């Protein structure tokens, strides 16, 4: 592509203010799908919210384990970050008295997988919201 054409393409990209971008990404982290919702992709945001929160609730119902940063295992500390990536759902679960499940419960391992997966999916959702804000995606 000629240099002039590249400059034109770059010039066409919408300029996004950093403050707006930070607020958008924080909102997208706290409430799954909120980043899409705020950018006018309402149905997309609602479906993402419903899917990710459903996974989180299923994880809680299956007594999934909440990891802590104090764990000696690196994987469990990574799991802590993965679970917190789901946003405000974690403190909400704490608020309602869920203190991290029962690891001896029969479905606990499945539940933990659901909790971590919900956080990971929310991470992808945040990145997608960022791409939309930067004009890289529709």
């Amino acid at each position, binding site marked *: 592509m000629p240099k002039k054409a590249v400059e034109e393409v770059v010039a066409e990209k919408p300029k996004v203010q950093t403050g707006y971008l930070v607020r958008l990404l924080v909102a997208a982290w706290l409430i799954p799908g909120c980043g899409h919702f705020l950018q006018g992709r309402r149905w997309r945001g609602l479906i993402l919210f419903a899917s990710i929160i459903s996974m989180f609730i299923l994880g809680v119902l299956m007594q999934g384990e909440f990891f802590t940063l104090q764990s000696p295992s690196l994987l469990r500390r990574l799991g802590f970050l993965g679970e917190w990536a789901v946003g405000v759902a974690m403190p909400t679960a704490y608020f309602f008295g869920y203190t991290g499940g029962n690891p001896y419960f029969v479905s606990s391992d*499945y539940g933990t997988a659901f909790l971590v997966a919900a956080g990971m999916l929310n991470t992808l*959702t945040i990145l997608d919201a960022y791409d939309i804000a930067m004009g890289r995606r529709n």
Partner: protein
Amino acid sequence: MKERGPIYPVAQSLDQSISTMVISHFTAMLLFAFFVSVVFGILSKDTPRDQLIYGAKTFGAFIGIALLLGWIMYPVPW
């Protein structure tokens, strides 16, 4: 495991109603595959039709590969 009650008394009564769910491995896999496929479909494609097709393909791949691996590992004694 930490023994801690609800942070606020408002949540005390709700805490009593938190129930548990026991499901089979297969049901857990179906639910997991469904929700992950929905998110992948939404994030990967732009039009609703493409999202639906991609989500369905991902869901099918999840279930198909899991069943295939299950049968492959069935005769393995460990």
